Structure formats: structure tokens, C-alpha cells
């Protein structure tokens, strides 16, 4: 049997009871049914919400998890081409991994179909007919320089023409041999080692013709955007000062630096910027074994050195922190091979590279993270290895001319937990750092995916927003619930709540375009403002006490607060006036200069202070409303008891109401925190989105949420950046989830503590 409470209440108002108090059986049954349906609907709603949140989580995680899948490789085919490549970088493969080629010792170019049947005839390269090929150097994708036993070099470009016939792709190999140049016209010594680069100005070739004798050939081509180029050639013999013999050499793609490896395990750098006068710039000891191989990673900034003992190390020119000329510094030592390193090839898509040893071991390494991603085993006697142009395969050749073709699936080599959250030593940096610079305009750009500055930025923005919002909102809530006159409160509370209706994009817009330049003008005053306001208000209160009682009673209790409005306004005016004065007298007339010289802080116009104010504005209504509700809900008998025992209103508010309402206040702050963490538009528009990591209130930051908004349109679906952005979304999810869970747990504990009231 149930009693209708509404009916009871209605009965109290209307004296004549028309309906009986006891409800009919049919009505009760209907109500029970409705009640059951309603509770099922509520449960269903709850389940749907939880399920959709889990579904979002699943979607995010399915996008994220391929980032951490290990790479795979499988051997697609193995065939005997018969052509044994010459020493050096004498092999290559087209971008679809259909045709491989090798330059042989006899000066022939041999193409080999990797997947289709059929053979290509051996092609004699013009200019190489009557001499033996002794060294081959690569100078870019498909570009080779061939050195001969009689001291000449011939540039040889290999390319593949792509045609489509009936929707099918047909590849036709092409080659073009340039004019031969005599590097040693008098003695005609054999070229023992060769390095070449196609610099922006033209071809640069360095050849080794004796144990310590080099020849530098430089071809200068002045290119015009439209029109024909001009050409100049220069030749210079150089005798290098090294211990032992030069065993390997390489030039970077710009033709700026020449690296020599010696039989004593030394790596020597020569400055080639002035081609007429190469100068010895730098040298380091790599190990004790002779250096067998020098290779560059894509972008030609990181040097990979392999030696006879099987050690593989990477080196960079690093500017010392104290300033001055950059020096060769070891970045990583990779797990060593068990046999001498004989060949290496860089990926043309990222900072990966593959190294091969004489016993057939292949290591797939990644330069940024310093990890070996994959180890493969080939037969002994490997001669060369090439990374396919799209970095999706490898082709190795051994000393009997046997080709081995591997397909490599390695879509996200740059991502490791260490690279995402730790310090990484990037190319050109003087030390390992946290950096976010995800996109570059070229393939040799080293993607920098450190999420740490973004998490830091999110927390920094949230911290400054709460620094502004929490004290204001909580003090306001305390005042409004405990001291303000109810009639005034009826207007004030909705007014504050309306603030929450302002779209954050409007706030961000105002903050970026109006508030930021305004704040820049009044920073000293802004910092004086809290002090001056407090002083003004206290003075006003003292004066109020001096006012005769008769005059004071003119104001209803709780409305005298309006008298403070002119005081606060005057305080603000005074603070900004004083701010100007302080800047002129104490800060040398330019507070930005003073910040820089005295505190080492730089001032950015769009900074955390501006965001703190704007985001604080967005968060204040939430914190205020929830906190005020929880304080107002403190049982009235507690207040009454406290006041009856002789406590003042202030003591009651501080010692009774505040602790009892603390669970609500805590969750108010935490919900405000959650709102600030996820806020996107304000931080997007009011900061410079600079991913810096400093706590300086006058510098900007980049938050996770803003970063996702900024970079998602430029992220190709399924790419590394795309997945890393999903990872950022996952982090954001975890952050708010953790904060809300902690808030709820603490709230429940506090509530239990005060339950006996």
C-alpha cells in the first residue's frame, strides 16, 4: 500500500478531501509497473553511457596500439643474379621492389627482376669499357659515381620509368652515364675508395688514390629557377695527416664535410666548405678496430660508423653547451654484430638504417631512439645491402651474386615509450631534450614526438587557471552562502551561472585579441592589484566601524556590500596607477627588460597569465555553483547550534560550515580542474601554442587538447602523427578519468567522515 505524498500535500491546501487516501488496487499496480519501467530505463541509460565511453576508449586504443607493434620482415625471394657487385655502394632497387641492379667490377650494369620471370641483358656502361671498376660511391637515390683502376670517375644515374598500360604498371630501367673525369691524370693510380655527394651547387667527389692521398673534385653548377645552368670544375690533390691508413671515407650530401675512417679506429672530419683548401676540423677515436664503413642517416646529419669488430655507433656534430664550434660526439652505441660490418643503408623515409656483417647478420636500427628493431640472418659472405626507397624492403647481395629480397613492415619506427615521454638526443641538439615538432616539409626531417611538453603545458594552463579561479570562486561561494542577503543572492547566483554560458571560443578570441595586448600594458599594476585591493577593503572596513551606529542601520544587513563597489573600483585605479609608477621608478621604465635581466624571464604577449585569466573566467561559474550549493546544503541546525553557543557568524562559517561542506568544495575544485584540462579553444587562441617546458607565467605553452585540434587535419590517416594524436587523446582521457575518480573517492570519504551530522 502506498500513500500519495502529493495528494497529502494538496489536501493540506484544499480543505475538502474529494479523493480517498487509500488508492485503488488498479492504480497501484500501474504505478508499480511504471516504477519498474522507469528504474529499468534509468539502468539502461547508465549502461549505455558506460558502454559508449568504453566504446570511445576502444576506438582510441585500436588506433593507438599499432604504434607499439614490433616490426616484421619476411624473405620474399632469393635468386642467383650472377652479377657480383663492385666494392662500395654498387647496388640498388626501384621503389616498387620489382627490379634490382648492380654495377659489376667489369663495368657492366646488370638489372635483375625480383618478382617476375625473365632476365635483363648485361649493359656495358659508356666510359668504363677498358678498365676495371675499383670503387663505387652513392651520391643520392639512384645516383652513383664509379671509380676505375686507371684513376677516372664516371657518374652513373639509374632510374626507372613508370608507364601505365591498361591500368597496369610497367617499369622500364634507364641509365645515364655522365662524362668521365680523370682524377689522377698523371699517375693514373687506381681509385681505392670513393665518396660523392650531389650538393646544391653540383657534384663533389673525393677519391682515395693512396694510403693517405686524396683527390677532391668539385663541379659547380649555378642553377636558375627558369633557364640553363652554368658549370665549373676544379680538381685538388690532398695529403691527409692521419695515423695508419684511410680505410673508408664519405661526404655529406651538402658537400660540406668529409669523414675519414682509419685503420687505427679513428674518425676524422675535414671541412670541405672551401673546396680549394680542405682543412682538418675534428677527430675522435671510435674504437681500436679499423673502421670499415661510414654511412649517413637520411638528412646527412648523423654519421653511422661500423668497424671490423662489428661495433656500430652513431655520431653527430654537436654544438657544446658553452658555445663555440660543433664537435663530433657519440650519440648511441648499437648492439654489435658478431662479424665485421661490411655494408649499411639508410632509410629514405625516416632515421632508420640497416647494417650487414660479413657473416650474414642484418640489423635494422633506428637512429633517433638508438634501438635495434629487428635482426635477420642471411648466408655468409654478404657484399651489400640496400634499403628500398620506400623503406618497405631490403635487398642484399653476396659475393657469389646471390640476391635476397626482404619485405619489411615497419610503419612506426620512431615511436617508443622512451621517445614519447623521455629525453631524446635529436640531430643538432647539444643534449637530450623533450621536444614536440611533429611535421617537417621534407622526408629527412626528424619527427620529434615528445608528449611530455604537451602534458606539462596542459597542467601548466590548468594550474594557472585554478590559481585565478579557485580562490575567487570559493571565497565568493562562502560569502554568498553565509553572509549575503537572500534577496541579493537571488540575483548574484544566476548571474555568475550565466557566465558559464559564454562559449569558450568567444573567451579565447577576447583573450587573444583584446586581453593579451591589454595585459601587456598593465602587468606591474596587475601584480599589485590583489595587495592594493585587500588594503583598500580593510581600510574601508575600519572606516565603516567608525561610522555611527545610527547611520549603519540605514543599510539592511547583507546589502552594505554594495558600498564596497566604489572602494574596489578605486583600488583598481590606484593599483594600475601605482603599477605605472613602480615600473618607471623601480623597474627602469620597461618591466619586460627588467624581467629579462633581473629574473631571466622572457615576456610573451600571449602567455599563461592571459590564459589563466580567460580560462579562470570559464571555470569560475562551475566551481562557484557547486561549492555554493554544497555550503548552502549544510544542515541549518548546525549553524543554529553554533550561533546559539555564542560563536560569531565568521566562526560558524569557518569552523562549522566550511568543514562540513568540504566534500562538495573538493569536488567543485576537481570538476573545475577537469574542465580546465579538457579546455581547447581558449588555450588554442590565447597562447602562442609554443611547446616549451618552463613554469614561467609570462611564456606560453601547448596543451594536449589544443595540439590535437591544431595537428589532426595535417595527419594522414594511419600515419605515426595520427596515431600519436590518438595517444594524446587517450592521455587526456586518462587524466580526466583519474582526476574525476580521485575526486569522487575523496568526496565519498569526506562525506562518510561528516555523515554523523
Amino acid at each position, binding site marked *: 500500500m502506498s500513500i500519495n505524498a502529493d495528494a497529502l500535500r494538496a489536501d493540506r491546501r484544499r480543505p475538502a478531501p474529494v479523493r480517498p487516501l487509500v488508492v485503488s488496487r488498479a492504480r497501484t499496480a500501474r504505478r508499480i509497473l511504471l516504477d519498474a519501467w522507469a528504474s529499468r530505463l534509468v539502468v539502461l541509460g547508465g549502461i549505455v553511457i558506460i558502454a559508449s565511453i568504453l566504446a570511445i576508449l576502444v576506438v582510441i586504443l585500436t588506433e593507438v596500439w599499432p604504434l607499439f607493434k614490433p616490426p616484421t620482415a619476411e624473405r620474399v625471394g632469393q635468386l642467383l643474379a650472377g652479377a657480383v657487385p663492385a666494392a662500395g655502394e654498387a647496388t640498388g632497387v626501384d621503389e616498387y621492389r620489382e627490379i634490382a641492379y648492380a654495377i659489376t667490377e667489369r663495368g657492366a650494369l646488370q638489372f635483375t627482376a625480383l618478382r617476375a620471370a625473365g632476365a635483363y641483358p648485361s649493359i656495358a656502361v659508356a666510359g668504363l669499357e677498358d678498365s676495371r671498376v675499383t670503387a663505387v660511391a652513392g651520391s643520392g637515390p639512384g645516383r652513383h659515381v664509379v671509380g676505375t683502376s686507371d684513376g677516372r670517375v664516371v657518374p652513373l644515374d639509374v632510374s626507372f620509368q*613508370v*608507364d*601505365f*598500360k*591498361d*591500368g597496369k*604498371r610497367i617499369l622500364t630501367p634507364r641509365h645515364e652515364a655522365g662524362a668521365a673525369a680523370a682524377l689522377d691524370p698523371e699517375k693514373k693510380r687506381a681509385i681505392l675508395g670513393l665518396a660523392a655527394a650531389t650538393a646544391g651547387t653540383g657534384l663533389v667527389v673525393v677519391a682515395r688514390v693512396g694510403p693517405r692521398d686524396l683527390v677532391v673534385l668539385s663541379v659547380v653548377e*649555378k*642553377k*636558375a*629557377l*627558369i*633557364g640553363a645552368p652554368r658549370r665549373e670544375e676544379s680538381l685538388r690533390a690532398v695529403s691527409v695527416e692521419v695515423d695508419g691508413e684511410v680505410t673508408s671515407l664519405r661526404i655529406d650530401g*651538402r658537400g660540406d664535410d668529409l669523414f675519414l675512417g682509419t685503420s687505427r679506429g679513428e674518425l676524422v672530419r675535414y671541412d670541405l666548405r672551401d673546396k680549394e683548401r680542405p682543412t682538418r676540423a675534428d677527430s675522435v677515436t671510435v674504437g681500436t678496430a679499423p673502421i670499415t664503413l661510414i654511412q649517413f642517416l637520411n*638528412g646527412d646529419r648523423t654519421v653511422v660508423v661500423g668497424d671490423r669488430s662489428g661495433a656500430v655507433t652513431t655520431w653527430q656534430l654537436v*654544438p657544446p653547451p658553452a*658555445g663555440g664550434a660543433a664537435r663530433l660526439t657519440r650519440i648511441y652505441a648499437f648492439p654489435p654484430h658478431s662479424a665485421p660490418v661490411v655494408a649499411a643503408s639508410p632509410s*629514405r*623515409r625516416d632515421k632508420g638504417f640497416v647494417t650487414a656483417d660479413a657473416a650474414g647478420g642484418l640489423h635494422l636500427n633506428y637512429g633517433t631512439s638508438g634501438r635495434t628493431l629487428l635482426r635477420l640472418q642471411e648466408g655468409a659472405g654478404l657484399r651489400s645491402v640496400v634499403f628500398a*626507397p*620506400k623503406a618497405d624492403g631490403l635487398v642484399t647481395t653476396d659475393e657469389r651474386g646471390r640476391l635476397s629480397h626482404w619485405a619489411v613492415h615497419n610503419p612506426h619506427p620512431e615511436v617508443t615509450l622512451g621517445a614519447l615521454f623521455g629525453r631524446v638526443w*635529436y640531430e*643538432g*641538439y647539444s643534449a637530450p631534450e623533450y*621536444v614536440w*615538432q*611533429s*611535421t*617537417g*616539409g*621534407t*622526408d*629527412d*626531417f626528424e619527427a*620529434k614526438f615528445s608528449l611530455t611538453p604537451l602534458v606539462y603545458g596542459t597542467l601548466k594552463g590548468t594550474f594557472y587557471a585554478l590559481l585565478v579561479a579557485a580562490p575567487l570562486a570559493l571565497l565568493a561561494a562562502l560569502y554568498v552562502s553565509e553572509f549575503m542577503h537572500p534577496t541579493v543572492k537571488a540575483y548574484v547566483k544566476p548571474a555568475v551561472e550565466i557566465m558559464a554560458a559564454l562559449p569558450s571560443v568567444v573567451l579565447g578570441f577576447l583573450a587573444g585579441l583584446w586581453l593579451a*595586448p591589454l595585459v601587456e600594458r598593465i602587468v606591474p599594476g596587475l601584480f599589485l592589484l590583489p595587495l592594493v585591493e585587500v588594503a583598500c577593503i580593510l581600510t574601508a572596513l575600519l572606516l565603516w566601524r567608525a561610522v555611527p551606529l545610527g547611520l549603519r542601520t540605514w543599510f539592511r544587513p547583507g546589502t552594505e556590500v554594495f558600498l564596497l563597489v566604489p572602494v574596489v573600483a578605486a583600488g583598481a585605479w590606484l593599483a594600475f596607477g601605482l603599477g605605472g609608477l613602480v615600473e618607471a621608478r623601480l623597474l627602469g621604465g620597461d618591466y619586460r*627588460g627588467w624581467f*629579462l635581466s633581473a629574473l631571466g624571464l*622572457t615576456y*610573451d*604577449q*600571449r602567455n599563461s597569465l592571459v590564459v589563466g585569466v580567460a580560462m579562470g573566467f570559464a571555470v569560475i561559474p562551475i566551481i562557484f555553483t557547486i561549492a555554493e550549493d554544497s555550503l548552502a546544503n549544510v544542515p541549518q541546525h548546525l549553524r543554529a547550534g553554533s550561533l546559539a553557543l555564542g560563536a560569531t557568524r565568521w566562526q560558524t562559517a569557518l569552523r562549522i560550515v566550511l568543514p562540513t561542506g568540504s566534500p562538495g568544495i573538493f569536488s567543485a575544485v576537481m570538476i573545475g580542474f577537469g574542465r580546465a584540462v579538457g579546455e581547447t579553444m581558449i588555450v588554442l587562441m590565447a597562447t*602562442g*601554442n*609554443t*611547446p*616549451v617546458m618552463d613554469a614561467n607565467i609570462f611564456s*606560453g605553452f601547448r596543451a594536449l587538447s589544443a595540439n590535437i585540434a*591544431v*595537428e589532426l*587535419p*595535417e*595527419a*594522414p*590517416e*594511419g*600515419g605515426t602523427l595520427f596515431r600519436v594524436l590518438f595517444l594524446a587523446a587517450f592521455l587526456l582521457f586518462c587524466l580526466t578519468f583519474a582526476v574525476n575518480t580521485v575526486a569522487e573517492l575523496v568526496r565519498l570519504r569526506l562525506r562518510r567522515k561528516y555523515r554523523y551530522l
Partner: protein
Amino acid sequence: MRIRGLVGAVALVLLVGGGVAAQVQVDPGLAPYKPVGGVSGNISSVGSDTLNNLMTFWAELFGKYYPNAKLQIEGKGSSTAPPALISGTAQLGPMSREMKGSEIDAFEKKYGHKPTGLRTSVDALAVFVNKDNPIKCLSLSQVDAIFSKSRRRGAKDDLATWGQLGLTGEWASKPISLYGRNSASGTYGFFKEHSLKNGDYKDSVKEQPGSASVVQGVTVDRFAMGYSGIGYATAGVRAVPLAEKDGGKCVEATADNSYNGTYPLSRFLFVYINRAPGKPLAPLVREFARVMFSKEGQEAVVKDGYFPIPASVAKEELNKVL
């Protein structure tokens, strides 16, 4: 009355703008556009912000010939073009840099052929300072030391104040306030590649979502420096002449200097399209390309402040679409 005044002011600005741009002449070898029948439908363009205004000019021109064709233009940055072309949300992908290998790979994986890049116009990427700034010339290694923390052009010291660039008086002690583009931008990538030699930008470069906001920033901030396409130049900023080497000849960002390659930051502006080999292009895209390479289309290039391509290049590019 007030509205009429405003219209007058706008017309005046257009006239003045036209007057300045009229120094560059369109190659007389370019043929005027002849409309064809049966072109209608919707096409959309997603990509470069540098090319955004120019795409709008071309779209207006296109709309004049084909009132039944609708063109949507979105310009957030060149890096947004490849994803849009790959997913098929755009048929035209304007880019202020060449597509890089990994983007071409992704495209080829989806369609089996490479995207087709059309060189539509020439830009001199300019380094802008405020109009009141007295600086005469900058070498590329100075630009590198101003914008980059890597200093790959070999400058010894970081350049942070105007005094270090030789300015005196009130300028000497003022820090250089840096404005740049966001990483989606092709201009960001091109400037990074050619001025910074692929070094990293300083963290203090304020990343702006568009070229217009870079120029706006430099206009408002007297001590600022920023970079963008020459088409965004306004009366409030000045493009600094650049020298390839320290102490070298200073070269103004003009059409001739860009054509002959003496201006170090000259580049082509591209529009990428998806053309399956051996199959005719969709009439809308084909005719849009023909409009771009017509006399009228190249006049629009001049109107937007960029430099037109010669008839020989236009012919080469047209062969890719016809």
C-alpha cells in the same frame, strides 16, 4: 552614405594594389581561356593557406565561366592537402611546397599511381619586418641565427636583439619578436628547409594559423620579424632584401630575381591533383587547371601579388592534364 564611402575605400585599395602589382607582366604567349560546354558540379580544394586567396580568385574566374559549378576552398596549410586528396574529400590540393616522399607513398598506396603536381605560379618567400624598421639587408645565415636554434648555416652566435643586427638607438636593446607559421604550413616547411637548412625553429617563434596573421603580427608589433609568401605583403610591412652569403649582394624579392634564382627563397606554388594514368581527367578539374594556366588565370596570380609562370612552363603543365 557611410556604406558608399566604405565601398570607395575598398575600391581605392584595390586600385592601389592593382597599380603596384601591374609592374609584373603576364607572358603574352599565354592563351586566353575558352569555355567548353557541359561543365557543372561540385569540387573542393583543401590545402595551402599561402595559395588560399589565389584559389579564391581562380574560383571566382571559374564561376564566371561555369555558373553551375561550385568550388569549396579550405586553406589551413599545405600538409592538409595530401590527407584530403588521399581520402577523396578534395580534388584539388594547393601546396606551397613539393609533396614529400612519405605523402606520395600514402597516396600511391591508395590509388596505385602518383599524384600530379602542377606548377601554377612563382612566389618569393619574404622575410617581413615592420614598415618603420630601418634594417637594410639580411644574409641567410643571419636569418638562420634569428629563427633557428640549430644555426646550421654556421652562424657563431644566436641573434636575439635588433642591436646584434646593427640597428642603433631605441632598436638596439629590443628583442626580435618572431612570428612564423604552424607546422601544417608548406611555408613553414620550405622556410625550414631553405633558410634553416632543416634545423629546428626556436621555441619562441609564435606559430600563427595563417600567413595573414603573421603579417598582422608584424604590422602591430614594431619589433617583430616574420615570414610568409610575398602575396600577403601589405603597406604595414616591408620585405627585407636577402643575401645568399654574408656580405653578399642583397637581392630584393621581385619577379625577375625569383625567375633567375638570385633571390634565395624563390619557389613554385603547386596544385596537386589525382590523375589516373591513361584515363581522362574529370572535366571540372581539367577545366579548372586550364583556367589556372590561361592568360586570365595568370593575371589573377599577378593580382594576388605572386609572380606568373611563363608560357613555356604553362604549356608543360597543361600537357599533364590534357
